[in-house]
């Protein structure tokens, strides 16, 4: 991901305020055991690597792994709480890769870049595709992908 575009200042952005290449950095969050246990209960995913220290150790991990979709949910929250606020109507979808494991105790943060922007048939709606790169405390890329958002547009008059 390049830094070629504008770095967005904190503020509120409607669809026409964004250009392809614009980017911002989210805050960070520490992935805790509480996150993992709660997500296991919500998802019905009690896979050994998330719940059992010994199983994680056996595969060479120092700690239990966070569920991939848990990390995505945390990243979605980082996006929603970022100082760059996007006037989104709905999340239309994701394409997402779990590139490297996230362990309990890791700190993650994301860089978000506007990869595509297009109008829709409705004058007051536009679509953007945001590209994410999620890194841990060591700077290792752990997840990446895109989120397509329906956003509001300011309409004259």
């Amino acid at each position, binding site marked *: 991901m390049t830094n070629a575009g504008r770095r967005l200042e904190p503020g509120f952005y409607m669809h026409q305020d964004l250009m392809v290449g614009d980017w911002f950095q989210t805050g960070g969050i520490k992935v805790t055991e509480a*996150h993992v246990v*709660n*997500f296991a*209960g*919500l*998802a*019905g*995913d*009690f*896979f*050994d*690597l998330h719940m059992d220290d010994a199983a994680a150790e056996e*595969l060479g991990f120092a700690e239990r792994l966070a*569920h*991939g*979709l*848990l990390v*995505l*949910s*945390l990243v*979605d*929250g*980082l996006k*929603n*709480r970022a100082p760059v606020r996007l006037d989104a109507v*709905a*999340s*239309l*979808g*994701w*394409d*997402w*890769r*779990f590139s490297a*494991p996230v362990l309990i105790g890791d700190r993650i943060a994301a860089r978000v870049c506007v990869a595509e922007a297009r109008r829709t048939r409705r004058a007051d709606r536009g679509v953007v595709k945001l590209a994410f790169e999620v890194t841990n405390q060591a700077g290792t890329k752990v*997840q990446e*992908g895109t989120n397509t958002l329906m956003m509001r547009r300011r309409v004259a008059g």
Partner: protein
Amino acid sequence: MSAGILPVAVGDGVQLSKTLTETDIALFTALSGDFDPIHLDEHYARRSAFGRRIAHGLLAMALLSGTAAKMSAKARDKGFAGTSLSLGYDRVRFVHPVFIGDTLTATYVIEALDEPKWRSIAHAEVRNHDGTLCVVSQHLMTWRQP
């Protein structure tokens, strides 16, 4: 165990069902920090196009994590001694809203194998009790020998 080198075969499937409750919304809000009023404010949501609160899309999708784990457990039951690791999801689409009280069924079916890369590709979807498709995606998993 299937004839191939992978512990799963095309057509293998698992399902997981649960009724989505208000508690689920509260717990997921605590995880994601997504306080959008469409999920949390009944009076705001009543005036929206949905007419009531809707679940976070990623909360409805979370059940797919459970089905992937169930597929892995099924492989283990058949004698697979290694482990599976989730690589990601493609073309996740939220096509219908999920409401509090909906009973969701997640279905996970292996639709292709990439044996040289030790990968399986699955169709993974969530439907409500009326059979309406709510979340659809493709899941990629890798299988590791012990």
